[in-house]
């Protein structure tokens, strides 16, 4: 079990066009691409949508991390291929793969380029109470920590003879207990510790708090937003008028 793919969702400080965008614009980006991806099951529009994402990966200087996330989720991709091919067709399976690639990429770009603090700030600017915004950003902050902990738990159990290889569904589920129980217990313990640490630093005592950093929607954010709305409007238009589209767009794989 590799938890390496979680790295692909961990913020990395870099200086790039995507990194410098407002977090709200990037949140909109993830949502727009996910909705657009979900609108289609046909190969060509999904592929076009996916291709529009590629330049953004390079603009954000994150090709390596992106590849890692795809590699980490390869087992999920394999399951999608097998199930869809078995129940529907290979052509449909391939469309679904591209759809999931679009969604992984959209969210991967978001989490790789948005600092947890900015995430909280953008939520607050959308009138979400600070406590909730903070918990949300804290949750993301702890994803890599929990990934490391999961690896340590696995190492500790393997060191006393625990083996992952088990046959049969029930055995496989039972086999997860030695990993999941310590992980859940230590996560709950950590949650209590964090809560106590926060309270001992007077978290939540003042209603109207001020912020050290502020976020601002600049011209390039507005331009990016307009681009996103164009993508969304075009996607919806194509979906509604799909049968009137040129023939190449209706093309499907012959399998």
């Amino acid at each position, binding site marked *: 079990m590799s938890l390496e793919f979680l790295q692909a969702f961990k913020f990395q400080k870099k200086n790039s066009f995507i990194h410098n965008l407002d977090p709200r614009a990037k949140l909109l980006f993830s949502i727009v691409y996910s909705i657009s991806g979900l609108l289609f099951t046909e190969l060509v529009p999904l592929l076009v949508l996916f291709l529009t994402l590629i330049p953004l990966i390079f603009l954000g200087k994150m090709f390596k991390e992106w590849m890692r996330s795809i590699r980490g989720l390869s087992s999920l991709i394999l399951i999608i291929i097998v199930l869809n091919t078995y129940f529907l067709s290979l052509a449909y399976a391939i469309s679904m793969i591209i759809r999931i690639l679009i969604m992984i990429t959209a969210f991967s770009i978001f989490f790789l380029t948005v600092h947890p603090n900015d995430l909280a700030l953008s939520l607050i600017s959308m009138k979400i109470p600070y406590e909730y915004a903070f918990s949300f950003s804290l949750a993301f902050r702890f994803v890599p920590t929990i990934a490391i*902990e999961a690896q340590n*738990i696995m*190492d500790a159990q393997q060191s*006393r003879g*625990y083996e992952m290889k088990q046959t049969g569904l029930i055995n496989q589920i039972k086999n997860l207990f*030695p990993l999941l129980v*310590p992980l859940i217990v230590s996560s709950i313990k950590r949650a209590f510790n964090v809560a106590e640490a926060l309270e001992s630093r007077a978290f939540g005592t003042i209603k109207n708090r001020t912020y050290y950093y502020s976020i601002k929607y600049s011209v390039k954010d507005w331009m990016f937003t307009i681009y996103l709305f164009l993508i969304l409007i075009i996607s919806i238009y194509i979906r509604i008028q799909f049968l009137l589209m040129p023939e190449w767009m209706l093309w499907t794989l012959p399998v």
Partner: protein
Amino acid sequence: MSHPLPQIMLNELDYSYPNGTVALRKINLNIYRGELVGIMGMNGAGKTTLIRTLNGLIRPSNGTVNIEAENIEPKSIGELSKKVGLIFQNPQHQIFSNTVAEEIEFSLKSLNLDKEKVRNKTIEVLKTFNLEKYRERSPLNLSGGESKKLAIASTICRDPEILVFDEPTLGQDAKEISFFTNLLKEERENGKTIIIVTHNIEFAMEYIPRTILMAKGKIIADGITKKVLTNQYLVKKSSLVLPQTRKFALKLKEIGIKCPDNIFSKVEMKNFLANYLKTKLTEV
């Protein structure tokens, strides 16, 4: 140490983590059967990485790990864990069963023993570790020291020939440390090889005969603990502090009391001071 061949032979080990951090550089190390070896050094020196190569949790990028003259590369962690018992720093990382007894039984299951043997062994181990009274209790409610004991018990019950401890004295009170040192003594009498990663310099001075000092992924010293840990240059290089008795001896020298350089343990210091005072008093 009459055995001609070392039980553990590390040959030119290199290892880098996927994020590029170099953890081990050209490690060569021999450990003989029945030895008690300490591994010390600052955080990030590569100590934990080094011990993880011993049971295959980490596979070196270069070099070989030989245990009992066999290259461990083709062997699974499961197979290796029968020979090398690694006991981690945080016992909470392995506790998951409903009862303390089940926790021990889980470790024994992978040895393919019959039920009767598993039960007897569990009872025996719980007795050795003074955990009998908690037998049917949830291991999640044990105190820090007791859960550490349980973690150690659940590895020792598998009877591996090599025991590797990561920071066993961390957060332990005096009573727990003395239990641990007794355990070390017993296991050594049983012929076990023991490797201990620790920051506790006083503990190392008192109980560990041989110490390996690491810095930046390299072994910078390997020898008799009393010599390695009183070498000011080495100690400084690996961000450790001198043992109290050594610091005390240096202070005594500063104020003009001639304290010999071969005083390492608290007992030796006590005897020296007693003699010194006696001679001073008779002079008066």
